[in-house]
């Protein structure tokens, strides 16, 4: 470190930002220049900073590609029904439907929270309702997928999926580290365990279970408000999606490390949630 008559290295340090930004007064700038000209330390610092700035200026402007952002967005969005997405221009005639959907969402959320809270205090299981295997109504509107059972009820794994809420965090933590990040970020929701005769739900499904259940509850309450023809279309579409989920899951069971199959499963589950959200926000036929 070298001291000059009018300026020390410490003083130069304090003026360096202004010097680099060009906001320093002329006399102060001259003093810094004089010091730097004869100080090895300060001249080195200044040269390094100048080099970094020059290289940084050469870097191309980086922006995440759009498809990348879509994935990020999907992961960071809260797993709730986007009532805000409801058309800004919703007409007065549809307000009761939207209000009912909002109320149902609140009730469903409160219910889920209640169950989650009570489950954390005492062992409890939930089971996925037995759906007609391969039938069009499988996990459709008519039958909510998740039915709370009592703590004393024996787990019926022959026809349903056992869901252990207390095991959820463990399951999330135990997910393979190398798992492809095609799925959404794991949430503290329930984890769908495997049916005895069907492949296990992969880690990618963990985040979907609670939201699907929530949405199906809302739709169950709204079913009578909807046009029967529309309900039929939705049930058929859900059957198609459920079949895709089953096929993807079965393939993934044979090749658990396949990122492609994980993506396919997530794609099908995304479609399911998207459809359920759409249905939850549909205007009432009345």
């Amino acid at each position: 470190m070298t001291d000059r008559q009018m300026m020390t290295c410490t003083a130069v340090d304090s003026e360096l930002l202004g010097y680099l930004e060009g906001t320093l007064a002329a006399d102060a700038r001259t003093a810094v220049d004089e010091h730097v000209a004869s100080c090895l330390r300060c001249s080195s610092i200044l040269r390094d900073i100048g080099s970094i700035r020059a290289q940084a200026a050469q870097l191309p402007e980086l922006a995440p590609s759009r498809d990348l952002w879509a994935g990020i967005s999907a992961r960071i969005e809260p797993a709730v029904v986007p009532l805000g997405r409801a058309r800004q221009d919703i007409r007065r005639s549809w307000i009761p439907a939207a209000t009912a959907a909002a109320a149902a969402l609140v009730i469903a959320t409160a219910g889920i929270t209640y169950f989650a809270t009570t489950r954390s205090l005492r062992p409890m299981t939930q089971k996925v309702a037995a759906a007609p295997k391969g039938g069009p109504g499988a996990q459709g509107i008519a039958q909510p997928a998740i039915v709370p059972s009592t703590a004393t009820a024996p787990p019926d794994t022959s026809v349903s999926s056992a869901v252990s809420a207390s095991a959820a965090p463990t399951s999330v933590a135990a997910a393979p580290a190398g798992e492809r990040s095609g799925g959404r970020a794991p949430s503290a929701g329930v984890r769908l365990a495997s049916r005895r005769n069907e492949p296990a739900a992969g880690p990618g499904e963990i985040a979907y279970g609670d939201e699907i259940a929530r949405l199906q509850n809302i739709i169950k309450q709204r079913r009578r408000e909807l046009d029967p023809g529309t309900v039929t279309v939705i049930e058929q579409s859900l059957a198609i999606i459920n079949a895709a989920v089953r096929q993807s899951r079965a393939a993934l069971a044979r090749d658990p490390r396949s990122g492609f199959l994980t993506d396919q499963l997530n794609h099908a589950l995304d479609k399911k949630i998207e459809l359920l959200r759409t249905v939850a926000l549909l205007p009432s036929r009345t």
Partner: protein
Amino acid sequence: MLIRTFTRAILSAMALVACVSATARAQRNYGETLDTTVALDRQATVDVSLMSGRVEIVGGGGSQARVRATTDRGDIQFDAAPGRLRLSVNPGHGGRGDARFELSVPAGTRVIVNSLSAPISIRGVKGEVDVNTVSGNVTVTDAARKLKAESVSGNVVVSQVTGDVTASSVSGRVDATDINGDLETESVSGRISMAGVRSRFVRSGSVSGRISYAGTFEPDGTYEFKSHSGGLRLSLPADVGAQVRIETFSGSVDSDFPVTLQPNTDKRSSNRRIEFKIGNGRSRIVAESFSGNIKLERGDGRDSRNDQ
């Protein structure tokens, strides 16, 4: 005394008549008709909603909007200002009957339509369009800036759009033709057909619906097509330059372009993954299907045969 009695009788009769009249008016189902012209800014918003019936909106010159509306039952709700025009049917008074809305609006107008089952036709507005319907068909031609069209079971047909397009249906068909802008199309079981597309970003996804695409592949553009069981048919111009990734679990792959497998092809995987480069490889094309067949064919960017 007699006069007082007579007066009371008259007043009572009048009250009774008024009461009966009001009751009858409240109970009857009546329709309304509106035919009016109002001044509208070029960048104004036209907001239309109805349950069923028909909507036709046409863009034109000038700075006026003409509104013709009829309802079988129910009141027409109409209010207009230079920046916004609203048209709907009051659901009170038995307003569940059909309504027919015909509007001509200045070019550049932003149009919003919400409907339950009415078919919706919007032509030549050259502005932003946002359409939502449950079971009605949607047809939009000659829009600009941004177009969003969604239906649950209706068909969605959009064409001649300069701007970003999002078109989706659950079970209906989705057709997008002559699009100049980013394009996103989605369905569950409805087939998706895209032709004459000039875009740097295309994303299309379905579950069982077939997907076909014919358009340009711009340098640095991204084109993604994904289905579960629906077939994918991509028509690529002969001079295309693209890095192509095709992946399927059990579907077939057919390409008119020579395919050279890259060294990084994962042979351990149960699914088939093919990566290859065409020309300068500047575009990025991804086609994935679980069980649908994938076909890459030489085309002119216009045809979109979807006959798999």
